[in-house]
């Protein structure tokens, strides 16, 4: 039984890491209806920039600030050069554009900082903590704490500021928001910048776990089922989805894996997501579309 809880808690904590990436997707999808596949590339770019600055002797907080500025600049550039000309096109076209974008960012990141693998130490030791006979990872607890802080910060931004109000208005109905004088383009830029910030946080935590390298952009594949279970439009959903996916895939690998030969973690979350969707076609917290003819 102890082992069961150990697996469960390990899974929940791993799930938080998935949620971190998923939140970036949700932000952008909510405000601009773009399914931003380049989020993974943004995570890679942020982590790579940060770690390269550190290696060149820039102090931690300065490196963080410079990277953040870069991400914001990138967001503004994307809004101006990619989103604005593509406004009103079908979602699938926008999705394709973000695929192109991820090529560009990946190429640019590697051209700028090279293809080596970097280690990243955030100064959190990862000696296992023993609590009631179970091993808990300090690092994962720290990651979970960071995620909680991030969500709290985003909640503040959305609920207590003017920008947040306009954001919610745009998410609710872009046309009505335009009609009352909200500048859609500025909102997009803000959202992409915030997504860049989330990407930076995710990049640091994932980078500390995996090492900063190209594979970082593959964490997107872990975030997709999270998104689908949680719904594309809800941050709370992204967290809940992450927890569900993390716990379920770990338990499945440990208890179900031996019967089918193991290694099922890649597809299990997707099948799980599919089952969820059969019951709730727009995810747990997604908005239900009402169709009219």
């Amino acid at each position, binding site marked *: 039984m102890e082992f069961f809880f150990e697996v469960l808690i390990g899974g929940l904590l791993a799930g938080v890491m998935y949620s971190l990436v998923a939140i970036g997707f949700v932000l952008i999808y909510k405000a601009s209806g773009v*399914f931003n596949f380049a989020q993974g590339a943004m995570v890679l770019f942020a982590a790579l920039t940060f770690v390269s600055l550190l290696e060149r002797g820039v102090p931690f907080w300065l490196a963080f600030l410079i990277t953040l500025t870069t991400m914001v600049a990138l967001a503004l550039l994307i809004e101006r*050069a*990619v989103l604005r*000309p*593509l406004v009103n*096109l*079908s*979602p*699938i*076209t926008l*999705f*394709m*554009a973000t*695929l*192109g*974008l*991820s*090529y*560009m*960012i*990946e*190429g*640019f990141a*590697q*051209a700028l900082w*090279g*293809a080596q693998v970097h280690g990243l130490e955030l100064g959190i030791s990862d000696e296992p903590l023993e609590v009631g006979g179970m091993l808990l990872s300090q690092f994962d607890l720290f990651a979970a704490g960071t995620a909680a802080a991030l969500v709290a910060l985003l909640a503040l931004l959305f609920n207590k500021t003017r920008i947040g109000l306009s954001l919610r208005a745009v998410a609710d109905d872009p046309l009505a928001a335009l009609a009352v004088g909200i500048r859609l383009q500025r909102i997009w830029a803000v959202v992409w910048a915030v997504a860049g910030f989330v990407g930076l946080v995710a990049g640091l935590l994932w980078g500390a776990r995996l090492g900063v390298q190209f594979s970082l952009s593959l964490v997107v*594949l872990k975030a*997709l*089922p999270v998104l*689908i279970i949680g719904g*594309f439009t809800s941050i709370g959903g992204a967290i809940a989805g992450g927890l569900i996916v993390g716990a379920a895939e770990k338990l499945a690998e440990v208890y179900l894996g031996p019967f*089918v*030969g193991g*290694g*099922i973690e*890649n*597809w299990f979350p*997707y*099948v799980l*997501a*599919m089952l969820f*969707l*059969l019951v709730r*076609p*727009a*995810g747990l917290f*997604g908005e239900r*579309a009402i*169709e*009219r*003819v």
Partner: protein
Amino acid sequence: MLYQEAGQFSTRYADDRRLFRLRQDRLGLALLLAFAFGAVPFLGNDYWFSAILIPFLVLSLAGLGLNLLTGYAGQLSLGSAAFMAVGAFAAYNFELRVAGLPLLASFLLGGVVAALVALLFGLPSLRIKGFYLIVSTLAAQFFVQWALTKFSWFSNDNPSGVITAPKLEILGADFGSPAGRYLLTLGVVAALFWLGHNLVRSELGRNWMAVRDMDTAAAVIGIPLLKTKLLAFALSGFFLGIAGALWAFTYLGTVEPHGFDLNRSFQVLFIVIIGGLGSILGNFLGAAFIVLFPLLLSNLAGLLPAGLIDAGQLENLQKIVFGALIIAFLIKEPEGLARLWRRLRERARLWPLRY
């Protein structure tokens, strides 16, 4: 002037319904086919057959498969590569385990198996719509890859999980040479495109388009959603499965499950979008773009004086250029290369007098 459709009257219904109503189209197609079948095998060299023409043809076919599903029936899919993998491994196993099965029959059976698998993963499409649907096709993508690597029976217990193509023989004729493989591929692809072109003009094709444009409305006017959507998945799977078998047999000669990963699905999606959603010709144009463009970039890079930029940077640069071009392309021509072609034809009709 170059292109004159006036004066071509249909005097019988059969004329009106034929595949290519215009004389120019028929003539052009006949010339093209004659050139592709008759002249190219003598003109091309190994490099052209093995590295350009065969992958171009196979990817066009894969594009057609996805286009039926996404471009005509409006169901987004990121699992194309999975269905290709199923086709390839199924064809391999039929060829291996059924003695004396003709090569073309195993292609066909491979396609049928892929169609069945696609049908299975298409079932959720009745309830799940839009972007949420990618979950079902992604599940297919990851599950198929896992199953093919996991159960070594699929690869005849090869320790590396790699399958190798059998001898390419049809009725005693050997198609093993590069030119032979090209001809075999061309033949299969041409036949399937003929089938595909007819499909989208049929009642089924029109139902697909109705579902694509708005499925609730389609249901209201009496189109059976279940049947229409599932047929789209199955037929798309069939085309993709045969494309996968060709990829394994005539192009690479060997393939491992990893060769059909998510990137391949994206590649097929790129072909469809760049070529043009809901266009038959677009598949060829898109595939040509995807195959030729990286080659062009790397060849152009080779022309730069050596040492100007080091090799690694060059590759990154190529990646950036490729990404930028895709975006530029979507901005300039979101309807794809097929649309450009239509415009070209309209111009040719007026040329040289612009009025």
